[in-house]
């Protein structure tokens, strides 16, 4: 579905991503893991068209996304739920969700709204409340719900477990499995190595702008270097 080839990107003269190759197939959960400042968010910004790549190619469904505006990327169904949620704090929960279908899925807005409310009953209870007054977990639900409103064909989740309590982190990963169970391919970008490897089928470890390690979740989990550096074993 998603195919990234020798991608290079950065800010001004500073190169952050130094040649990345990555793919996400239909129905897969693929994890991109790494600690702070290795380029995870930069990768997501390039994939969603907010930041231009310096070099390399991004193919979605066989079509190139290089130079495509973020609006057209959303229209194609590549939906990015950003780190830090980036919901609209001044607007109601319902309005936030409605805007999720601004560019895509507008015709089925009310049906999709029901579907999101069924997935997240808390959001239905708070549909009239200003989104900025929700708790962190609820805001994360809202951000994912807003992404679902666009009927994603591939969902990028950037740090969905960040800042959540351990219990909510469990719930978040259960939700990711459930969404994927319905056939939705997910690119999961996380710092939480253990739990991400549990639900992903394949994983890439990002270090200083290059993939230091990649393979099946099983392979990555058993890599001695990863165990030492990320799991402290």
């Amino acid at each position: 579905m998603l195919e990234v080839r020798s991608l290079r990107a950065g800010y001004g003269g500073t190169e952050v991503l130094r040649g990345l190759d990555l793919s996400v197939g239909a129905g897969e959960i693929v994890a991109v893991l790494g600690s702070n400042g290795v380029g995870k968010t930069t990768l997501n910004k390039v994939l969603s068209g907010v930041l231009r790549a310096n070099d390399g190619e991004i193919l979605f469904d066989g079509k190139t996304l290089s130079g495509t505006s973020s609006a057209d990327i959303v229209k194609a169904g590549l939906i990015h739920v950003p780190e830090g949620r980036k919901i609209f704090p001044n607007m109601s929960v319902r309005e936030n969700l409605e805007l999720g279908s601004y560019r895509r899925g507008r015709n089925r807005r009310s049906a999709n709204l029901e579907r999101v409310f069924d997935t997240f009953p808390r959001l239905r209870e708070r549909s009239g409340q200003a989104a900025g007054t929700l708790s962190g977990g609820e805001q994360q639900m809202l951000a994912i719900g807003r992404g679902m409103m666009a009927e994603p064909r591939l969902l990028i989740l950037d740090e969905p477990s960040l800042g959540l309590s351990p219990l909510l982190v469990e719930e978040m990963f259960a939700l990711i499995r459930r969404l994927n169970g319905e056939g939705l391919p997910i690119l999961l970008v996380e710092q939480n190595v253990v739990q991400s490897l549990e639900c992903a089928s394949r994983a890439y470890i990002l270090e200083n702008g290059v993939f230091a390690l990649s393979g099946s979740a099983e392979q990555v989990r058993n890599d001695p270097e990863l165990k030492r550096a990320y799991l402290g074993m």
Partner: protein
Amino acid sequence: MYSPAIIAEAVVNGLMTGAVYALIALGLTLVYGVLHIINFAHGALLTAAMFAVWAVYVAFGLDPYLAILPLTPLFFGLGYAVQRFVIGPASHGSDSNILLVTLGLSIAIENALLAGFRSDTRTLNTDYGFQVVELGPLLLSKPRLIGFGAAVLVTALLWLLLSRTDTGKAIRAVAKEKLGASLVGIDVAHVYAVTFGLGCACLAVAACLLMPTFYVNPRIGQAFVLVAFTIVVLGGMGSIPGALLGGLFIGVVESLCGLFLGDSLGQIGIFLIFILVLLVRPTGLFGAKA
């Protein structure tokens, strides 16, 4: 002292002037709320709109109220183009640049008008310019009453646009969360331009409502915009109900000060209130805490 009827008339007169002030402030506050810049070209664009009303009246005999129909979309388009093709590209993403670009624009527009129309003051001679309506004991100017109704109607329409339509919601979304807006597929540059266009459309309507009772010369916009700034600060930067209520309030203050202190001192009340607001409640009546 004055009789209650005279004071009541001054209050109603103030409300009627204030409604048009509110309309001008509305455009200013909308652009501030979304683009987070003070549009220094606001006054010059108002002057341009007033000259446009005068020009279509002189050239085609088009009544100023009917001129609302062609001039509002025209100024929307003009504002859209100015933001999309001049201010946006020239700013390179920095707010301080936008400030300078709008300041430059205002100088360019004012001087173009000065070159084209000279510094003469011009008025329209409509048959209804001096007509009055009797409302109980009050004698009210008919064109200003129409102005009041139209300004309130436009504010209500703008409110509906922002709260009910997808475009309006996109405007409010961009105002607070640009990245989030891009990620749901909102074209931020387009929304900026639409917002600027709406601000200019408000000015076109205000110009049409002003011209039957007011005059125009190339510097006239500045006087209104100074008052509009006060209203925006009083009502709360970026707040639409704030702009409407602030406008009405300022209109009444000006009218009452004019009555008690003499016409030439009418505006002193406005600026006293401006200073008081800055001292006591800098966020304004409806402003969010920074």
